[in-house]
């Protein structure tokens, strides 16, 4: 391969990788996953109750923290917060139509964090949630692995 072809193909590769990164910024296709972006304060995160006014689920995306939180409003009006980190090998989980999935080894969890498919053996870590006047306070903690 001559130098010109090498540079040309190298640049094409960079463009392909750049396109992949750009795809990550798209937000306009498919049904939305209700997401709330915030920053934790110490080991606590606050979510306004208005965020769950029109949806029973909220994906809480934390800036510079080890995992996202899946916040689910239960039929009895209580709230469940799940650390979205696979309990098998610590890989971040993806939201699916009926739960969560780990791309690394295929573990699947239902909306309540129960294991539906291995190799994960333990359900997702449930985080304490406290309902205050106009917001929920989630106590972050270490998500157990293995």
């Amino acid at each position, binding site marked *: *391969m001559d130098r010109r*072809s090498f540079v040309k*193909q190298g640049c094409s*590769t960079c463009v*392909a*990788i750049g*396109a*992949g*990164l750009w*795809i*990550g*910024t*798209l*937000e306009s*296709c*498919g*049904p*939305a*996953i*209700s*997401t709330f972006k915030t920053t934790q*304060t*110490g*080991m606590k995160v606050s979510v306004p109750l208005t965020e769950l006014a029109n949806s029973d689920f909220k994906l809480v*995306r*934390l800036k*510079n*923290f*080890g*995992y*996202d939180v899946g916040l689910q409003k239960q039929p009895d009006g209580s709230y469940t917060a799940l*650390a*979205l*980190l696979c309990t*098998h*090998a*610590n890989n*971040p989980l*993806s*939201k*699916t*139509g*009926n739960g969560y*999935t780990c*791309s*690394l*080894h*295929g573990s699947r969890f239902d909306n309540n964090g129960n*294991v539906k*498919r*291995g*190799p994960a*053996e333990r359900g997702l870590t449930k985080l304490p949630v406290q309902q205050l006047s106009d917001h929920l306070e989630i106590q*972050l*903690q*270490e*998500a*157990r*692995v*293995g």
Partner: protein
Amino acid sequence: MNRILGSLLTLLSYFQVSAQQYPVLTQAQKLVIRTGEDSLSAGIAKNKTVVSGYGSAFYQRDFNKGVSAVTLERAVFFIGHQFNSKITFFSETEIENAKVEGGEPGGEIALEQAYLQFRFSNSTYLVAGLFIPRIGMLNENHLPVNFNGVERPMVETFIIPATWRELGVGLYGTIPGRPLNYSVGLMNGLDSKNFEHGTGFRGGRAEGSFAPANNLAITGALQYFVSDFKFQVSGYMGGTVGLSKNGADSLQLNSGAFGTPLYLGEASMTYSHGGFSAKAIGTYVTLPDAYKVNKAYANNVFEHMYGAYAEVGYNFFENIQNKKLQEQELVAFARFETLDMNSQIPSNGIYDGTLKQQHLIVGLTYLPIRNVVIKTDVRLLNTGPQNPELIINPNPAAVPYQEHNTFFNLGIGYSF
């Protein structure tokens, strides 16, 4: 120049997690920092190194040949280590058929994966090293507890050669706010010299061992989740000649990153609800310069090949009113596969009817606990006729080729 250096330093410092990034620290975080862990790891785990694995063994009866075999098909050991919250190492080491002896045919010891994962965020990460691209359903998720049937699906063995891993980099992510995952990868290409008649392009994979890197491959996949469905499309394009220009010219092959290319496309779907599950996949592979490859290496390769299968299953314990049984699974399933490893051949190729196959597999999958499986099935095989032109030295004692065969399989598997 200063700007470039500044940008580079910013990028490099991203993966160095320091306490200074977190001015507000709780007592717990301070404790973690003092013990040598970064503050982000406080949100992850105490265990930094994870050891796990999976394996399977099976018995198979081939009714046409009248022979049976039993083997410890594979035992795989997985080791992962988390350096900090942004950099993780993953690996899988596989021993096939229990035993490997120097100079003797038999098993295999191989790395299935060994890569570093760099996490940009909780929804985007990059992997670098020996990794498994997201192509098909089985390639990425191949644990025996996660698929029905003692044998892996034939389509995802011969058309998509799982477990297919190569050296390179891959970017994985989720579209923000959407149930849409994507992946793109750049890796070493294939080696058409090692393509073997009857196994698609399986023999052309380098699997991390002295891969020719003059030629490259790109791959991409999209996964979409809606309700109880998962849809996926993926594609692959890669060069199959890793020779220098002179070397390739002497064989009348095209060299370069994507010279003598191979293209693969795949679409698949899975569904699971209330104990009922279904999955389907279709895949197509083309090697437009098959004539040149055949001329250079005389390996009677395909120009086009395809494969597809559909499977349905039902877990009898899903809706049963017994807590003990609800934790177990007993799945009855049926899968139909059709494939042709030489659906089109170049003019210098020889058609082989035995590579056009249909498989019907019917069986049971029992999981007494989530990560242990006992499987049994019967596979009915139907192929096209054998081409006498491919029998170079006929064995006078050989029995005539039979286009129909039946296999009985019994297997166990585990993962942890």
